[in-house]
């Protein structure tokens, strides 16, 4: 006699229900926040004990906030592109919630990557800004983020804007590989990749380990803030639904 078994993915997919996600987020956010604080505190301890670079002197300290912000600017867009696929293929409302919640965070980290890069560039290159391929492509990424934020707020009904927003997000994803490989494809003032290379990282362990711990701390911070923003977006939609229901019932 055959027995019916539930699909093994049901447990995972149950979190795609906004109500269940709220419960999951409420339980997860405090633990994520504590882990983020520990990672960032450990990272800052390692940064403050890192030696000065023999060429760049103490300006190398800027790397520990610039590089994680730059990595996140691309990672967050990749998260948004995955969410856009979820919206287009499965038309899942939580995917749209994820995309909308991530966009402002991506814009902030991209802005920080540009500003800290500029603060690093002035003493090392003698200029605040250069229209080279890496810097220009990151500036384009910031403009794309701002455009997507504007588009997400242009529709009164979130469901109406989900598909156009997802399509525009996927179209803009072309900028991510351009940013990554810009230093290889073009002759840029910006240095080539030092950590994410096909061979071993071209960086001493005294700088590499603090950088990796800071990158983990920044990534955990993003996931904490993303869950918090998703929770806000779901609450906003519930309020909107209840207000419409009230208006229809003439309260």
């Amino acid at each position: 006699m055959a027995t019916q078994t539930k699909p093994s993915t049901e447990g995972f997919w149950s979190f795609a229900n906004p109500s269940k996600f709220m419960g999951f987020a409420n339980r997860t956010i405090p633990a994520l926040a504590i882990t983020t604080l520990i990672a960032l505190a450990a990272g800052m301890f390692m940064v403050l004990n890192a030696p000065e670079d023999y060429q760049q002197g103490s300006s190398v300290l800027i790397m520990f906030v610039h590089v994680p912000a730059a990595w996140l600017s691309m990672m967050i867009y990749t998260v948004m592109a995955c969410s856009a696929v979820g919206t287009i293929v499965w038309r899942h409302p939580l995917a749209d919630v994820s995309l909308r919640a991530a966009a402002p965070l991506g814009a902030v980290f991209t802005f920080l990557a540009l500003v800290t890069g500029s603060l690093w560039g002035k003493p090392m290159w003698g200029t605040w800004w250069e229209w080279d391929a890496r810097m220009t492509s990151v500036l384009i990424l910031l403009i794309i983020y701002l455009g997507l934020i504007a588009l997400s707020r242009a529709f009164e009904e979130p469901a109406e804007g989900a598909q156009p927003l997802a399509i525009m997000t996927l179209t803009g994803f072309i900028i991510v590989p351009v940013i990554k490989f810009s230093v290889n494809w073009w002759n840029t003032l910006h240095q080539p990749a030092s950590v994410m290379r096909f061979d071993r990282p071209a960086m001493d362990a005294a700088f590499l380990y603090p950088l990796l711990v800071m990158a983990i701390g920044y990534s955990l911070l993003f996931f904490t803030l993303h869950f918090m923003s998703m929770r806000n977006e779901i609450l906003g939609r519930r309020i909107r639904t209840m207000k419409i229901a009230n208006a229809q019932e003439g309260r």
Partner: protein
Amino acid sequence: MFGKYASFVVPAYALSMLALAIVIVRIRVIYRQRLAELNALEMAGAGRRSAKKK
């Protein structure tokens, strides 16, 4: 502490901390506002569609 490039290092860290602190506070304020608004609506008798089905 930050060597001869302190005038570049300190603003980089200060700006990063300030921007991230503003984001954290903003998200928390919005959460509290929306939770309060939702509670007020529920107290006023408005129910969610999913709650009414039960």
